Each structure stands twice: as structure tokens, then as C-alpha cells.
């Protein structure tokens, strides 16, 4: 779990800010790439690619296949957190929120990135970036606020598969609205 110094006093809020900034940075980069790619491929091809990709990820989330998606699966180095009570957590959050150095245990962030690349206008893309960071923050804050953290860890271990399936199904209405 999180390096404890990130959670001292009000540092966790700076970590959340960092996560949101990290998501914003990645969304900006992906949107910029999307501007270059969209003229090459038609909307129908993007939808076809998305449907194929989502089907693969859902099968993966159900545990039926093993699919390794591109990621920089590394931990954020400890020295980042030593940069003080404000900048340390912010930098740590940016690294995790942007996906520069993080473990992607699910394929949903890749679906989000593809959607931003293929369909997003600038403002919704930036909004999605911030919300991605806030989504990452939700679990860490829930653990932080839970009175008995070992209980929380056990609950996560017990329900991890359920959470993955619920979230994978929950993105389907969004994909429908975005591609229609």
C-alpha cells in the first residue's frame, strides 16, 4: 500500500491533487495524439476497434484469458516522497495519476485512453483526465478513512474480483453514449 509519509497530516490531499494533475497531463497528451490520428481513420473504424478491444478486456476481467496490455509496471521511487509534505505527495500523485510509473491491474484505463484518443473533444477529455485521478484517489482515501485498515485490506482482497466485474459492466452505458 501507500508509502506512509504520503498520508501524514494533510499530505493525502496533495496526493489527490497530484493524481488529478497526472490524469490531466495524460488526457492532454492522448487528446493531442488523437487530433493527429482522427483524420486518418473513420468513426466506424474507431467504433469497430473499440468494440473488439472492450470485448477482449471484458473477457480478461472475467478471468477467462490472460492479456498483457502496455504499461510501465514499476513502483514510484521512495525519493519522490522525500521531496517534502507538499511536493512529495504531488509528484507521487502525478506519477501514479499519469500512469508514468504504475501497475495497471485492469484494462479499463486503456479503454478510457482509446476513447479519449478516438472520440473526445478537449473539455470532456480534460474532465475525464481529472476524474480518472479522482477515481484512483477514491480507493486510497477510503482506506485512509477506514478505522481498521487490516479489515479494509481483507475486504478488498475478498471483493477484488467483484469490483472488477462491476466496474467493467458499469462502463458499458458510457461507451454506448459516447459512440452513438
Amino acid at each position, binding site marked *: 500500500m501507500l508509502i506512509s509519509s504520503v498520508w501524514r497530516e494533510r499530505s493525502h490531499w496533495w496526493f489527490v491533487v497530484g493524481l488529478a494533475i497526472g490524469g490531466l497531463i495524460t488526457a492532454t497528451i492522448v487528446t493531442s495524439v488523437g487530433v493527429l490520428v482522427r483524420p486518418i481513420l473513420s468513426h466506424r473504424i474507431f467504433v469497430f476497434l473499440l468494440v473488439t478491444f472492450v470485448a477482449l478486456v471484458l473477457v480478461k476481467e472475467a478471468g477467462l484469458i490472460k492479456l498483457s496490455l502496455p504499461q510501465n509496471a514499476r513502483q514510484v521511487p521512495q525519493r519522490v516522497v522525500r521531496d517534502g509534505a507538499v511536493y512529495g505527495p504531488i509528484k507521487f500523485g502525478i506519477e501514479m495519476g499519469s500512469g508514468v510509473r504504475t*501497475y495497471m491491474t485492469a484494462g479499463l484505463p486503456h479503454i478510457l485512453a482509446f476513447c479519449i484518443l478516438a472520440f473526445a473533444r478537449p473539455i470532456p477529455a480534460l474532465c475525464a483526465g481529472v476524474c480518472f485521478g479522482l477515481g484512483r484517489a477514491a480507493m486510497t482515501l*477510503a482506506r485512509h478513512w477506514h478505522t481498521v485498515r487490516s479489515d479494509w485490506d481483507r475486504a478488498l482482497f475478498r471483493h477484488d474480483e467483484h469490483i472488477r466485474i462491476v466496474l467493467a459492466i458499469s462502463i458499458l452505458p458510457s461507451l454506448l453514449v459516447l459512440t452513438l
Partner: protein
Amino acid sequence: MGVATAASRTFRRLTHPLVPAAVMACGALALAAAAAFGHRPVLVAWVVLALCAGYSISGSV
């Protein structure tokens, strides 16, 4: 004392790892309902998609 215990128990339930996922699922259901009635809340769709994507990999934190 009893009130404090009840409050802390409620708070513990609210911070259960399933709760944010359930809230996001409710958002997705609302979105599906809106789409079924002919609405197209694009920004809400981005928010739900992004929150779900962010929360899905938080176990790695």
C-alpha cells in the same frame, strides 16, 4: 458511547471498498436510463467512464 459506536460503524461501512464501485454502478444505471429515454449526457458518460477506469486499478496503489 452507543451513538459514537453506531456512527463509527456506519462510517466503516461507507468506506468499504465495494461502496465507491456501487456508487459508480448507480451512476452507470442512471446513464443507461437517460440513454433509454433518448438523452445523451456525454459529459456524465465521460465522468462515469473515467471514475470507473481510475478506481479499477486502485488496488495496485
